[in-house]
């Protein structure tokens, strides 16, 4: 019987093929993970934009002004009526908590990690004579995996 054994070169080639086959399978894990992360941040951005839209309804009409791009950072941001201060469990303004590393470290770390920002584009619109209405474009931006991502929501704020 003419038996031919496996040579060392063949073993190495077989291992190479095995690795080449395994790489796409393993990269699937990474891409699935990125999709979940993207969904998480998008979900947050949607709630974030909704929060601004609701705050706009309670603001004095003339105080709704443009916040140009690249927008206002939320972590370590200025007092803006939307996010800072964020909460206050005390009975005076001195107890108000802002989104800073010292006062709300967990929330600050999350917002800072993805560099969440918001911008507002404000236009006056008229549907009928005498209307006073503003069309506000709420733009939420964040960074994820080296990419700049964006979510936008348009809302109409009447002067009532």
């Amino acid at each position, binding site marked *: 019987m003419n038996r*031919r*054994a*496996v*040579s*060392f070169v063949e*073993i*190495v080639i077989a*291992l190479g093929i*095995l*690795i080449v086959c*395994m790489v796409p399978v*393993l990269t699937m*894990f*990474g891409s*699935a*993970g990125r999709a*979940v*992360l993207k*969904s*998480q941040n998008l*979900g*947050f951005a949607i*709630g*974030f934009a*909704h*929060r601004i839209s*609701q*705050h706009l*309804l*309670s603001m004095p009409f003339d105080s709704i002004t443009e916040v140009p791009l690249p927008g206002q950072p939320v972590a370590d941001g200025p007092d803006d*009526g939307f*996010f800072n*201060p*964020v*909460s*206050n*469990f*005390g*009975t*005076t*303004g001195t*107890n*108000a908590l802002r989104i800073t590393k010292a006062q709300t470290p*967990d*929330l600050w*770390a*999350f917002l800072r990690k993805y560099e969440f920002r918001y911008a507002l584009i404000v236009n006056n619109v008229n549907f009928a004579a005498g209307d006073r209405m503003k069309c506000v474009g709420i733009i939420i931006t964040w960074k994820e995996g080296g990419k700049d991502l964006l979510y936008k929501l348009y809302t109409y704020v009447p002067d009532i």
Partner: protein
Amino acid sequence: MFQTSDKPRSGVTLVELLIGTAILAVILGIVSRWFFMQREYQQRLSHISAIQEDFRRASWNMIQELQMARVVIWPRINADKSLHSDTKVVFKDFNGQIISYYHVPATGEIRRCIIPNGPGGVVINPRPVGEGIASASFTASSFDNRLISFHLSTGGVHTLDAVYLLNGD
């Protein structure tokens, strides 16, 4: 006693086999480490996804009812006009019932109850409005008590949302 063969040998030597096994072991070590790291990462992401789903459900349930409410009874802004937060919100709904959403830290739930506007006991809904929520705060920040902002968080995952009451009292 010893015979020699002229046939050429074409098998794997012990050294080749050992080298092949060593290479395989190294590769398997790297790949398995990567695999377990990715699996752990996946589990963490699935966990985050589940938390977000809990947040969405809780937010949706509360916003649907709150935006049709007539007035927020608690929390109210402070005397110095600064915002005021609490782990519960009490409001009068469209039909005049007094409703409260409150966070229960021990179970991580947001519960809903009806507070009688007169004699009788508090009626707690059997099903929670939200589950898996480590902390919740409701913040009043408008002078007319029609805007309630809320912040839900669990294990580094957050949601910041708000609801403006559409109806007047």
